[in-house]
Protein backbone atom coordinates (compact mmCIF):
# COMPACT_ATOMS: atom_id res chain seq x y z
CA UNK A 1 0.00 0.00 0.00
CA UNK A 2 1.25 3.45 -0.89
CA UNK A 3 1.89 5.66 2.12
CA UNK A 4 -0.47 8.45 3.03
CA UNK A 5 -0.54 11.10 5.72
CA UNK A 6 -3.43 11.07 8.17
CA UNK A 7 -4.96 14.18 9.71
CA UNK A 8 -7.51 14.30 12.51
CA UNK A 9 -9.15 17.73 12.65
CA UNK A 10 -11.61 18.52 15.43
CA UNK A 11 -13.68 21.17 13.66
CA UNK A 12 -15.21 21.57 10.22
CA UNK A 13 -13.17 24.73 9.67
CA UNK A 14 -9.95 22.89 10.32
CA UNK A 15 -11.03 20.12 7.95
CA UNK A 16 -11.84 22.61 5.15
CA UNK A 17 -8.50 24.37 5.44
CA UNK A 18 -6.59 21.07 5.41
CA UNK A 19 -8.51 20.03 2.29
CA UNK A 20 -7.84 23.37 0.61
CA UNK A 21 -4.16 23.05 1.43
CA UNK A 22 -3.87 19.64 -0.25
CA UNK A 23 -5.83 20.62 -3.39
CA UNK A 24 -7.05 17.32 -4.84
CA UNK A 25 -4.36 15.16 -3.24
CA UNK A 26 -6.40 14.47 -0.09
CA UNK A 27 -9.63 12.60 0.67
CA UNK A 28 -11.98 12.81 3.61
CA UNK A 29 -12.39 9.54 5.43
CA UNK A 30 -15.33 8.57 7.64
CA UNK A 31 -15.45 4.88 8.64
CA UNK A 32 -13.14 4.02 5.75
CA UNK A 33 -15.01 0.85 4.80
CA UNK A 34 -15.22 2.02 1.20
CA UNK A 35 -12.24 4.35 1.04
CA UNK A 36 -9.55 2.27 2.78
CA UNK A 37 -10.58 -0.77 0.76
CA UNK A 38 -10.23 1.22 -2.47
CA UNK A 39 -6.78 2.43 -1.38
CA UNK A 40 -5.73 -1.14 -0.58
CA UNK A 41 -7.04 -2.27 -3.97
CA UNK A 42 -4.92 0.54 -5.50
CA UNK A 43 -7.99 2.02 -7.19
CA UNK A 44 -7.09 5.40 -5.68
CA UNK A 45 -3.85 6.67 -4.13
CA UNK A 46 -4.47 9.83 -2.14
CA UNK A 47 -1.47 11.49 -0.53
CA UNK A 48 -3.40 12.34 2.61
CA UNK A 49 -6.55 11.33 4.44
CA UNK A 50 -8.51 13.80 6.52
CA UNK A 51 -10.50 11.93 9.14
CA UNK A 52 -13.95 13.19 10.11
CA UNK A 53 -14.14 11.00 13.24
CA UNK A 54 -12.99 13.73 15.61
CA UNK A 55 -15.57 16.33 14.55
CA UNK A 56 -18.32 16.40 17.17
CA UNK A 57 -20.70 18.46 15.01
CA UNK A 58 -21.19 15.43 12.72
CA UNK A 59 -22.06 12.81 15.29
CA UNK A 60 -25.49 12.95 16.85
CA UNK A 61 -28.91 11.56 15.93
CA UNK A 62 -31.66 14.01 16.87
CA UNK A 63 -35.39 13.43 16.94
CA UNK A 64 -37.25 16.68 16.55
CA UNK A 65 -40.54 15.63 15.04
CA UNK A 66 -38.54 14.35 12.12
CA UNK A 67 -35.13 12.81 12.24
CA UNK A 68 -31.73 14.45 11.87
CA UNK A 69 -28.68 12.23 11.55
CA UNK A 70 -25.17 13.64 11.67
CA UNK A 71 -23.22 12.27 8.72
CA UNK A 72 -20.88 10.38 11.08
CA UNK A 73 -23.76 8.45 12.63
CA UNK A 74 -22.72 4.80 12.63
CA UNK A 75 -24.87 2.32 10.72
CA UNK A 76 -24.82 0.31 13.96
CA UNK A 77 -26.34 3.17 15.93
CA UNK A 78 -29.09 3.64 13.33
CA UNK A 79 -29.85 -0.07 13.59
CA UNK A 80 -30.30 0.27 17.36
CA UNK A 81 -32.14 3.60 17.37
CA UNK A 82 -35.62 3.25 18.90
CA UNK A 83 -37.21 6.05 16.85
CA UNK A 84 -35.82 4.74 13.54
CA UNK A 85 -37.10 1.29 14.48
CA UNK A 86 -40.58 2.59 15.28
CA UNK A 87 -41.17 5.36 12.75
CA UNK A 88 -38.84 4.60 9.83
CA UNK A 89 -38.94 0.80 9.46
CA UNK A 90 -37.72 0.90 5.85
CA UNK A 91 -34.52 2.62 7.01
CA UNK A 92 -34.20 0.21 9.92
CA UNK A 93 -34.47 -2.73 7.54
CA UNK A 94 -31.87 -1.25 5.17
CA UNK A 95 -29.27 -0.65 7.88
CA UNK A 96 -29.76 -4.04 9.45
CA UNK A 97 -28.89 -5.84 6.20
CA UNK A 98 -26.03 -3.50 5.27
CA UNK A 99 -22.83 -5.57 5.25
CA UNK A 100 -21.93 -7.39 8.48
CA UNK A 101 -21.47 -6.43 12.16
CA UNK A 102 -17.79 -5.46 11.83
CA UNK A 103 -18.57 -3.12 8.94
CA UNK A 104 -21.74 -1.70 10.56
CA UNK A 105 -19.70 -0.88 13.67
CA UNK A 106 -17.53 1.58 11.73
CA UNK A 107 -19.43 2.49 8.54
CA UNK A 108 -21.37 5.76 8.57
CA UNK A 109 -24.55 6.97 6.89
CA UNK A 110 -22.60 9.91 5.41
CA UNK A 111 -20.03 7.56 3.92
CA UNK A 112 -22.80 5.46 2.42
CA UNK A 113 -24.18 8.56 0.65
CA UNK A 114 -20.91 10.25 -0.28
CA UNK A 115 -19.51 7.04 -1.73
CA UNK A 116 -22.49 7.33 -4.07
CA UNK A 117 -22.60 3.72 -5.19
CA UNK A 118 -25.80 2.75 -7.05
CA UNK A 119 -26.14 -0.04 -4.47
CA UNK A 120 -25.92 2.20 -1.36
CA UNK A 121 -28.49 0.62 0.95
CA UNK A 122 -29.43 3.81 2.78
CA UNK A 123 -30.39 5.55 -0.47
CA UNK A 124 -33.74 3.95 -1.46
CA UNK A 125 -35.37 4.46 1.96
CA UNK A 126 -34.12 8.03 2.21
CA UNK A 127 -35.29 8.72 -1.35
CA UNK A 128 -38.86 7.71 -0.52
CA UNK A 129 -38.68 9.73 2.71
CA UNK A 130 -37.55 12.76 0.68
CA UNK A 131 -34.59 13.43 2.93
CA UNK A 132 -32.66 16.71 2.80
CA UNK A 133 -28.86 16.71 2.79
CA UNK A 134 -27.11 19.48 4.72
CA UNK A 135 -23.82 20.21 2.98
CA UNK A 136 -21.20 22.45 4.57
CA UNK A 137 -18.35 24.24 2.86
CA UNK A 138 -16.03 27.15 3.60
CA UNK A 139 -18.75 29.43 2.19
CA UNK A 140 -21.56 28.14 4.40
CA UNK A 141 -24.29 25.51 4.44
CA UNK A 142 -26.58 24.49 1.59
CA UNK A 143 -29.53 22.14 1.59
CA UNK A 144 -29.89 19.64 -1.23
CA UNK A 145 -32.93 17.38 -1.70
CA UNK A 146 -31.81 13.75 -1.88
CA UNK A 147 -33.27 13.63 -5.42
CA UNK A 148 -30.58 16.06 -6.63
CA UNK A 149 -27.63 14.57 -4.74
CA UNK A 150 -26.47 11.61 -6.84
CA UNK A 151 -24.92 12.34 -10.24
CA UNK A 152 -23.47 9.01 -11.39
CA UNK A 153 -21.64 5.96 -10.06
CA UNK A 154 -19.33 7.36 -7.37
CA UNK A 155 -20.38 10.92 -8.20
CA UNK A 156 -22.48 13.44 -6.34
CA UNK A 157 -23.19 17.14 -6.29
CA UNK A 158 -20.52 18.06 -3.71
CA UNK A 159 -17.20 19.68 -4.55
CA UNK A 160 -14.02 18.20 -3.10
CA UNK A 161 -13.83 20.59 -0.13
CA UNK A 162 -17.44 20.27 0.97
CA UNK A 163 -18.52 17.96 3.78
CA UNK A 164 -21.90 16.31 4.18
CA UNK A 165 -22.92 17.48 7.61
CA UNK A 166 -26.28 15.88 8.28
CA UNK A 167 -29.24 14.10 6.72
CA UNK A 168 -32.66 15.36 7.69
CA UNK A 169 -35.80 13.32 7.33
CA UNK A 170 -39.10 15.15 7.55
CA UNK A 171 -41.78 13.79 9.87
CA UNK A 172 -43.50 11.42 7.45
CA UNK A 173 -46.46 10.78 9.73
CA UNK A 174 -49.41 12.37 8.03
CA UNK A 175 -52.17 13.60 10.34
CA UNK A 176 -54.87 12.77 7.77
CA UNK A 177 -53.63 9.50 6.31
CA UNK A 178 -51.86 6.43 7.57
CA UNK A 179 -48.36 5.91 6.21
CA UNK A 180 -46.49 2.64 5.76
CA UNK A 181 -43.11 1.82 4.25
CA UNK A 182 -40.87 -1.09 3.36
CA UNK A 183 -37.37 -1.93 2.11
CA UNK A 184 -36.38 -5.09 0.27
CA UNK A 185 -33.01 -6.29 -0.96
CA UNK A 186 -31.85 -9.16 -3.10
CA UNK A 187 -28.26 -10.29 -2.75
CA UNK A 188 -26.31 -13.43 -3.54
CA UNK A 189 -26.20 -14.13 0.19
CA UNK A 190 -27.81 -12.20 3.04
CA UNK A 191 -25.99 -8.95 3.82
CA UNK A 192 -24.17 -8.96 0.47
CA UNK A 193 -24.08 -5.89 -1.77
CA UNK A 194 -27.48 -5.63 -3.43
CA UNK A 195 -28.21 -7.23 -6.80
CA UNK A 196 -31.21 -4.94 -6.56
CA UNK A 197 -33.03 -3.17 -3.75
CA UNK A 198 -36.37 -1.42 -3.47
CA UNK A 199 -38.17 0.93 -1.11
CA UNK A 200 -41.86 1.86 -1.03
CA UNK A 201 -43.84 4.40 0.97
CA UNK A 202 -47.63 4.74 0.80
CA UNK A 203 -50.11 6.99 2.57
CA UNK A 204 -53.59 5.52 2.60
CA UNK A 205 -57.00 7.15 2.88
CA UNK A 206 -59.09 4.07 3.47
CA UNK A 207 -58.60 2.03 0.32
CA UNK A 208 -57.31 4.95 -1.73
CA UNK A 209 -53.59 5.60 -1.96
CA UNK A 210 -52.99 9.36 -1.54
CA UNK A 211 -49.21 9.33 -1.67
CA UNK A 212 -46.92 6.75 -3.22
CA UNK A 213 -43.14 7.00 -3.41
CA UNK A 214 -40.97 4.29 -4.90
CA UNK A 215 -37.21 3.92 -5.27
CA UNK A 216 -34.73 1.25 -6.32
CA UNK A 217 -31.00 0.63 -5.97
CA UNK A 218 -28.40 -1.20 -8.11
CA UNK A 219 -30.57 -0.81 -11.21
CA UNK A 220 -29.14 2.36 -12.75
CA UNK A 221 -26.15 4.69 -12.57
CA UNK A 222 -27.56 6.18 -9.36
CA UNK A 223 -30.19 5.10 -6.83
CA UNK A 224 -33.46 5.80 -8.69
CA UNK A 225 -36.78 7.34 -7.76
CA UNK A 226 -39.47 5.60 -9.85
CA UNK A 227 -41.90 8.40 -10.68
CA UNK A 228 -43.67 6.76 -13.62
CA UNK A 229 -44.68 3.82 -11.48
CA UNK A 230 -45.66 6.14 -8.61
CA UNK A 231 -48.13 8.00 -10.87
CA UNK A 232 -50.04 4.78 -11.56
CA UNK A 233 -50.70 4.28 -7.86
CA UNK A 234 -51.40 7.77 -6.58
CA UNK A 235 -55.13 8.43 -6.12
CA UNK A 236 -56.04 4.83 -6.88
CA UNK A 237 -57.29 1.82 -5.04
CA UNK A 238 -54.47 -0.70 -5.01
CA UNK A 239 -55.71 -3.88 -6.66
CA UNK A 240 -53.73 -6.96 -7.77
CA UNK A 241 -54.26 -5.82 -11.39
CA UNK A 242 -52.80 -2.40 -10.61
CA UNK A 243 -49.79 -3.97 -8.90
CA UNK A 244 -49.24 -6.15 -11.96
CA UNK A 245 -49.13 -3.01 -14.09
CA UNK A 246 -46.81 -1.27 -11.61
CA UNK A 247 -44.39 -4.20 -11.82
CA UNK A 248 -44.33 -3.99 -15.63
CA UNK A 249 -43.75 -0.24 -15.52
CA UNK A 250 -40.89 -0.63 -13.04
CA UNK A 251 -39.24 -3.20 -15.31
CA UNK A 252 -39.15 -0.54 -18.02
CA UNK A 253 -38.35 2.43 -15.83
CA UNK A 254 -35.12 1.03 -14.35
CA UNK A 255 -31.89 0.96 -16.38
CA UNK A 256 -29.69 -1.78 -14.98
CA UNK A 257 -26.52 -3.27 -16.39
CA UNK A 258 -25.07 -6.77 -16.39
CA UNK A 259 -22.05 -7.15 -14.11
CA UNK A 260 -20.39 -9.75 -11.88
CA UNK A 261 -23.33 -9.70 -9.49
CA UNK A 262 -26.22 -10.21 -11.88
CA UNK A 263 -27.71 -9.63 -15.33
CA UNK A 264 -29.70 -6.72 -16.69
CA UNK A 265 -32.72 -8.93 -17.36
CA UNK A 266 -32.86 -10.47 -13.90
CA UNK A 267 -32.46 -7.08 -12.27
CA UNK A 268 -35.44 -5.67 -14.19
CA UNK A 269 -37.65 -8.60 -13.26
CA UNK A 270 -36.65 -8.79 -9.62
CA UNK A 271 -37.06 -5.05 -9.09
CA UNK A 272 -40.60 -5.20 -10.47
CA UNK A 273 -41.38 -8.02 -8.05
CA UNK A 274 -39.74 -6.29 -5.09
CA UNK A 275 -41.60 -3.03 -5.70
CA UNK A 276 -44.90 -4.93 -5.82
CA UNK A 277 -44.06 -6.74 -2.60
CA UNK A 278 -42.78 -3.53 -1.04
CA UNK A 279 -46.09 -1.78 -1.72
CA UNK A 280 -47.89 -4.81 -0.30
CA UNK A 281 -45.78 -4.71 2.88
CA UNK A 282 -46.25 -0.96 3.27
CA UNK A 283 -50.03 -1.38 3.02
CA UNK A 284 -49.80 -4.25 5.50
CA UNK A 285 -48.10 -1.88 7.90
CA UNK A 286 -50.89 0.69 7.47
CA UNK A 287 -53.44 -2.02 8.20
CA UNK A 288 -51.55 -3.02 11.32
CA UNK A 289 -50.67 -6.44 9.95
CA UNK A 290 -46.94 -6.07 10.55
Amino acid at each position, binding site marked *: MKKFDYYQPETLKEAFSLMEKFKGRAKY*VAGGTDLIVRIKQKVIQPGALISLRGIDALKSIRHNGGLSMGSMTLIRNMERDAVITRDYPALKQAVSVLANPQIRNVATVGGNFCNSAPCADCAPPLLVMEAILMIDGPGGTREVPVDDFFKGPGENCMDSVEILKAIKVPDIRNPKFKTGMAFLKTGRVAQDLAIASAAALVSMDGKICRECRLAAGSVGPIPLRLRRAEKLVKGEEITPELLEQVGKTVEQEVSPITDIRSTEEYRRLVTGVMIRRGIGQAIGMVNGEL
Partner: protein
Amino acid sequence: MKKTINFILNGHEVSAEVESHKMLLQVLRDTFGLTGTKEGCGMGECGACTVLVDGMNIDSCIFPAFEVHGKSVTSIEGLLGEGNRLHSIQESFVEKGGVQCGFCTPGMIMSAKALLDETPNPEDGEIRKGISGNLCRCTGYVQIIESVKDAAVRRTE
Protein backbone atom coordinates in the same frame (compact mmCIF):
# COMPACT_ATOMS: atom_id res chain seq x y z
CA MET B 1 4.11 10.93 8.79
CA LYS B 2 4.58 9.37 12.21
CA LYS B 3 2.83 9.82 15.53
CA THR B 4 2.88 8.35 18.99
CA ILE B 5 -0.43 6.76 19.84
CA ASN B 6 -1.49 5.82 23.36
CA PHE B 7 -4.19 3.28 23.97
CA ILE B 8 -5.23 0.43 26.19
CA LEU B 9 -4.25 -2.92 24.76
CA ASN B 10 -5.68 -6.00 26.45
CA GLY B 11 -6.04 -4.07 29.69
CA HIS B 12 -2.62 -2.42 29.70
CA GLU B 13 -1.74 1.16 28.81
CA VAL B 14 0.59 1.07 25.83
CA SER B 15 2.17 3.57 23.52
CA ALA B 16 3.77 3.16 20.12
CA GLU B 17 5.17 5.29 17.35
CA VAL B 18 3.30 4.34 14.19
CA GLU B 19 3.25 5.47 10.57
CA SER B 20 0.10 7.18 9.35
CA HIS B 21 -0.75 4.62 6.66
CA LYS B 22 -0.62 1.62 9.00
CA MET B 23 -3.75 -0.25 9.92
CA LEU B 24 -4.38 -1.53 13.45
CA LEU B 25 -3.75 -5.11 12.27
CA GLN B 26 -0.14 -4.33 11.32
CA VAL B 27 0.49 -2.52 14.58
CA LEU B 28 -0.83 -5.45 16.62
CA ARG B 29 1.18 -8.04 14.72
CA ASP B 30 4.38 -6.18 13.88
CA THR B 31 4.82 -3.63 16.66
CA PHE B 32 3.36 -5.62 19.55
CA GLY B 33 4.06 -9.14 18.26
CA LEU B 34 0.47 -10.19 18.89
CA THR B 35 0.10 -12.60 16.00
CA GLY B 36 -3.12 -14.21 17.22
CA THR B 37 -5.02 -11.74 15.07
CA LYS B 38 -4.85 -13.02 11.48
CA GLU B 39 -4.78 -11.39 8.09
CA GLY B 40 -7.01 -13.17 5.59
CA CYS B 41 -8.25 -10.95 2.79
CA GLY B 42 -6.94 -7.62 4.08
CA MET B 43 -10.03 -6.02 2.52
CA GLY B 44 -12.74 -6.07 5.19
CA GLU B 45 -14.43 -9.18 3.79
CA CYS B 46 -13.43 -12.19 5.92
CA GLY B 47 -13.20 -11.10 9.57
CA ALA B 48 -9.98 -13.04 10.34
CA CYS B 49 -8.55 -9.76 11.68
CA THR B 50 -11.48 -9.03 14.05
CA VAL B 51 -10.63 -7.31 17.35
CA LEU B 52 -12.70 -5.23 19.75
CA VAL B 53 -12.32 -1.45 19.86
CA ASP B 54 -14.17 -0.04 22.86
CA GLY B 55 -16.07 -3.31 23.00
CA MET B 56 -17.24 -3.33 19.37
CA ASN B 57 -15.97 -5.90 16.90
CA ILE B 58 -14.24 -4.34 13.90
CA ASP B 59 -12.02 -5.48 11.03
CA SER B 60 -8.53 -4.31 12.10
CA CYS B 61 -7.16 -4.66 8.53
CA ILE B 62 -9.10 -1.57 7.44
CA PHE B 63 -9.02 0.36 10.73
CA PRO B 64 -6.40 3.15 10.65
CA ALA B 65 -4.00 2.75 13.59
CA PHE B 66 -4.13 6.50 14.39
CA GLU B 67 -7.84 6.06 15.25
CA VAL B 68 -7.21 3.86 18.30
CA HIS B 69 -5.49 6.68 20.19
CA GLY B 70 -7.29 7.01 23.53
CA LYS B 71 -9.36 3.88 22.96
CA SER B 72 -9.38 0.37 24.35
CA VAL B 73 -8.39 -2.55 22.10
CA THR B 74 -8.93 -6.21 22.91
CA SER B 75 -7.36 -8.92 20.77
CA ILE B 76 -7.61 -12.69 21.19
CA GLU B 77 -4.56 -12.54 23.49
CA GLY B 78 -6.60 -10.40 25.86
CA LEU B 79 -9.17 -13.10 26.54
CA LEU B 80 -8.45 -14.90 29.74
CA GLY B 81 -10.53 -17.17 31.92
CA GLU B 82 -10.31 -17.53 35.67
CA GLY B 83 -7.05 -18.93 37.06
CA ASN B 84 -5.13 -18.27 33.85
CA ARG B 85 -7.25 -20.78 31.94
CA LEU B 86 -8.83 -20.38 28.55
CA HIS B 87 -11.75 -17.98 28.37
CA SER B 88 -15.11 -19.75 28.52
CA ILE B 89 -15.82 -18.95 24.85
CA GLN B 90 -12.50 -20.54 23.90
CA GLU B 91 -13.31 -23.62 25.96
CA SER B 92 -16.64 -23.94 24.18
CA PHE B 93 -14.94 -23.77 20.79
CA VAL B 94 -12.50 -26.50 21.83
CA GLU B 95 -15.19 -28.76 23.21
CA LYS B 96 -17.80 -28.34 20.49
CA GLY B 97 -15.38 -28.71 17.58
CA GLY B 98 -15.63 -25.07 16.53
CA VAL B 99 -11.97 -25.12 15.51
CA GLN B 100 -10.52 -26.98 12.55
CA CYS B 101 -7.56 -25.27 10.85
CA GLY B 102 -7.99 -22.41 13.31
CA PHE B 103 -7.33 -19.52 10.96
CA CYS B 104 -10.75 -17.97 11.38
CA THR B 105 -10.95 -18.82 15.08
CA PRO B 106 -9.45 -15.74 16.78
CA GLY B 107 -11.69 -13.44 14.75
CA MET B 108 -14.69 -15.71 15.20
CA ILE B 109 -14.21 -15.73 18.97
CA MET B 110 -13.91 -11.94 19.13
CA SER B 111 -17.20 -11.61 17.22
CA ALA B 112 -18.76 -14.17 19.56
CA LYS B 113 -17.55 -12.10 22.51
CA ALA B 114 -19.03 -8.89 21.12
CA LEU B 115 -22.31 -10.70 20.46
CA LEU B 116 -22.55 -12.30 23.91
CA ASP B 117 -21.60 -9.08 25.69
CA GLU B 118 -24.60 -7.41 24.08
CA THR B 119 -26.97 -10.39 23.80
CA PRO B 120 -26.20 -12.89 26.58
CA ASN B 121 -28.82 -15.40 25.38
CA PRO B 122 -28.83 -15.18 21.60
CA GLU B 123 -31.21 -17.14 19.41
CA ASP B 124 -29.84 -19.11 16.47
CA GLY B 125 -30.66 -16.30 14.06
CA GLU B 126 -28.87 -13.77 16.24
CA ILE B 127 -25.79 -15.99 16.41
CA ARG B 128 -25.78 -16.35 12.62
CA LYS B 129 -26.10 -12.61 12.21
CA GLY B 130 -23.46 -11.98 14.88
CA ILE B 131 -20.81 -14.07 13.11
CA SER B 132 -21.90 -13.14 9.58
CA GLY B 133 -18.76 -11.02 9.13
CA ASN B 134 -16.48 -14.00 9.82
CA LEU B 135 -15.82 -16.51 7.06
CA CYS B 136 -14.79 -20.08 7.84
CA ARG B 137 -13.52 -22.39 5.10
CA CYS B 138 -13.46 -25.52 7.25
CA THR B 139 -16.27 -26.14 9.69
CA GLY B 140 -19.40 -25.38 7.71
CA TYR B 141 -20.39 -23.15 10.65
CA VAL B 142 -22.61 -25.73 12.38
CA GLN B 143 -20.05 -26.49 15.11
CA ILE B 144 -19.25 -22.81 15.47
CA ILE B 145 -22.90 -21.98 16.14
CA GLU B 146 -23.00 -24.86 18.65
CA SER B 147 -19.87 -23.44 20.29
CA VAL B 148 -21.38 -19.99 20.67
CA LYS B 149 -24.57 -21.50 22.11
CA ASP B 150 -22.50 -23.49 24.58
CA ALA B 151 -20.53 -20.37 25.51
CA ALA B 152 -23.75 -18.52 26.22
CA VAL B 153 -24.86 -21.25 28.60
CA ARG B 154 -21.47 -21.34 30.38
CA ARG B 155 -21.44 -17.60 30.83
CA THR B 156 -24.87 -17.43 32.42
CA GLU B 157 -24.20 -20.43 34.68
